[in-house]
Structure formats: C-alpha cells, structure tokens
C-alpha cells in the first residue's frame, strides 16, 4: 500500500479515456461507427452533429446488428432506444406466452405422436414453424402497431367483440409468430388493413370506395417500408388510417406523387 505511485492515477485516467472511447458505441447498440458512419476513435468527440456532417463512408450501409433497428440515425436518440427496447421486451414476453399456449394446445396430442415413433421435438409442429428472429418480429410488430393505431381499428374492436368475430368477414390480426415468407406476410398485412378500412369513421369528402382506393396506396407504402423509422408515426395519437412515409426514400416516384394527393384527402 505504501508503494502506491502516481502512476496508478494515470492508469485510472487513461482507463477512463479508453472507456470514453468505447462509451458511445455501447449505448448505440455497440456500433463501430458513429452516427455519420465514420468509425469511432479516440479523436472523435462524441458531442454534436455539426461536427459529423462531412459525408459518410461509402461502406456505411451495413448496420452492425441485425435488422432495421440500428440502421437509422434516429434510433440513436434515447426516446427511440427506450421504445425499441420496450418493444423487444414485449415481444419476448409475447413469444413466451405464445409458446406456452401452443404447448398447452398440443398437450393432448403428444401421446399419440410418441406412439407413432416421432421424436419429442416434433410434438409441436407449430414450434418448428415459429418465427423467432428478433428483427423480423420487430418489423412485423411495427406493421401491426401501425394498423392498430388507427381509428378504424378502435371502432372495430369496440363494435365487434372477439367472441362474435366470424372468420373471413371480420379482419383478424396476422400472427407474427408464424413462419411466413416476406411477401406472404406483407400481403396478409395489406389485406388486413384493407378489411379494417370498412370501419373507418365517415368522412366529408368521397364515398367509402374513394377512401379505400386512396388508402390502398397507403398500404402499398406499408410494404415498401423496409426500414421502419419511428420518427413520427405509431405511438402518437391515432391518425385515421394515414400511413405517413417518414422518409419516402424507398417509395417509387409515382407512388410518392400520388401520395401527396392521397394524404391530403385522407382524414
């Protein structure tokens, strides 16, 4: 103890500096790159955006972690991080619940399957076709949330309690835990949302049919949305059926142009 030298202090400070370097990358999903795509190093003060406006590395298109979550600059803000985190936890909880439900439902069949020689692991063929990829689940959940965050959905669930729902007639939320191809899933979402429009609140301009046509474009935009940015939509107070494309960069030009017209008509 008496041999303690000043060097110890320097060690402490240098370990702090070293820590500062790795600091920001930790609370932005361990990305090696900063918000503008440049690699994080000692030299970079992780202060303001104004320092980071000089162009991105051409290699900046690959996010470090899976899925759309880390891709956008927006998700480095605390608000989005917390929301995403919350959504992820909810997803895991839902997944566990769903798993239990499946296993419970399969229970009575287990014996039969065992006797036919099949292994224990396929006592739940549902389990095998379970979607567990977090990125996929997150994206699907966001798509579902967009649909549920509408006046139409609100009116629908109030009007038709679950036990009175008739398959085929009443829209049913697609099951995000089942394995589907991307196209299949997107199509299901689209059809679901189109069906929900039947419960849109009446508007002043145009008939029900008009609404459906216009909102169809909104649904197409849903599908084009490969990168769910959480900048504006979703958790905010419900906009009736309007699906704003926050960035618009992925949307084909002709849809964009029509979008401007459609958006102004939709309530």
């Amino acid at each position, binding site marked *: 103890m008496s041999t*303690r030298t000043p060097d110890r202090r320097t060690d402490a400070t240098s370990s702090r500096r070293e820590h500062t370097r790795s*600091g920001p990358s930790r*609370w932005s999903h361990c990305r090696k790159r900063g918000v503008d795509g440049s690699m994080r190093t000692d030299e970079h003060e992780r202060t*303001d955006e104004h320092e980071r406006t000089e162009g991105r590395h051409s290699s900046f298109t690959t996010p470090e972690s899976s899925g759309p979550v880390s891709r956008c600059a927006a998700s480095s803000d*605390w*608000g989005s991080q*917390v929301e995403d*985190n919350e959504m992820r936890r909810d997803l895991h909880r839902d997944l566990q619940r769903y798993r239990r439900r499946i296993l419970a439902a399969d229970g009575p069949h287990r014996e039969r399957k065992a006797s036919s020689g099949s292994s224990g692991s396929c006592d739940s063929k549902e389990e095998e076709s379970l979607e567990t990829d977090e990125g996929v689940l997150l994206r699907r959940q966001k798509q579902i949330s967009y649909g549920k*965050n509408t006046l139409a959905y609100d009116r629908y669930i109030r009007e038709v309690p679950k036990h009175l729902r008739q398959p085929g007639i009443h829209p049913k939320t697609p099951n995000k835990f089942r394995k589907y191809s991307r196209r299949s899933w997107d199509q299901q979402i689209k059809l679901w949302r189109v069906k929900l429009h039947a419960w849109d609140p009446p508007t002043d301009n145009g008939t029900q049919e008009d609404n459906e046509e216009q909102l169809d474009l909104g649904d197409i935009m849903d599908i084009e949305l490969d990168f769910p940015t959480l900048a504006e939509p979703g958790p905010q107070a419900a906009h009736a059926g309007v699906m704003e494309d926050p960035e618009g960069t992925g949307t084909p030009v002709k849809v964009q142009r029509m979008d401007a017209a459609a958006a102004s008509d939709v309530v």
Partner: protein
Amino acid sequence: MGCREQFQSFDPDTQMLLKTALKDPSSVDLEKVSNIIVDQSLKDQVFSKEAGRICYTIVQAEAKQSDGNVFRRNLLNRLQREFKDREDMRARSIHEWVCYVTFICNIFDYLKVNNMPMVALVHPVYDCMMRLAQPDALKNEEEVDCLVLQLHRIGEQLEKANSQRMDQLFFLLRDGFLLQEGLTSMTRLLLLEILEFRAGGWMLSSTANKYYYSEISD
C-alpha cells in the same frame, strides 16, 4: 396525488397545465410540458430530486389514455441534448450541472420499462458519475455531495445494470480519497462513507452507521 406540493414553484397557469397533464395528457402539449419540467429541474435542486415522480405519473397517464409515448420521448430526447452539452453546462454553472445529474438519476430511478431501468440511460448516468469523480469535481463539495447522494439512491440498480463500470467508478473514488490533495474533510468523509456503503452491499453496517450518522447529529 402527491405531486401537488411540487407545483408550488410554478406560476398558476403553469400549475394548471401540469395538473391537466397528469389527468388528461392527450389534451395538452406534452412537448411543452416536458420542457417546463426539465427547465425547472435544471434550476431547482429540490424540484429535480423528485421530478421523476411527476414524469412517471404523466408517462403512465399517457400510456393508459392513448397508448402514447410522446411525453416520454420528448423528455428523453431533451435529456439527451442536455447530456451532449454537459461539459459546457458544467463550465457555465456547477449548480445547473448538479441539478441535471440529480434529475437524470431521478428519472432513471422512477421511469422503468417493464420494471427494469431504461437501458438507454445506464451509460449516460455512469458518464455523469464518472465526471463527478474527476479530480476537478472532487474539489467541489456540491459535486461530491451530488455524487454520493445519487449513489445512495440508485447505486445498487446501476451496479446490477453494469457492474464493470461501477468497479471503474470506485477505482476513481478510492484514488481520489487516497491521493488527491486539497480535499476537504467533509469530502473525505463522504467518500469514505460511500466506499463502505458499497462494500457493505449498498448498506452500512450498524457500527458504520453509528460512526457516520450519530457523529454528524452531535
């Protein structure tokens, strides 16, 4: 509701706005409300010590009423902006800086997600603690006081979220206690107490308690 007494520091119109935010959040401008709360927290340390409770109430109310997150998002992003400029803030006013740290720790304490602390805040809070443990900060009793108070309140949770950083923080605190010259005896007392507090698993043994707390009351 328990938040009423905290509103005393505001003018009547603002008080009205805040009360409405607690009961009917979607009817008010939540961005404005979050800014009002943050602004006040940066000025008034007494307010910032418990402002987390108000925020928690509004967040819950909004979630329940409209499943919304507007208030929380605005609050967090405003906190983040202040965090980015904390060095300037500290240079401008130690008091404001200390209020900021008190506030962000309070938010960390109150605003849980699924009963877990918000992961996004863990590193920023640690960054603030580490800053307070720097030699220039240890010279100010105001900053030391803030540091130990926050560690008493949220140290255990912080450690659970990231024990490695807590270890690093305490390396700094030990160093400061042992090596730094010019610290006041109050500062050294506070540092020694927090060292023992953590070593005791975030509580003081009864003898240590006697030492620190009955001495002071003498």
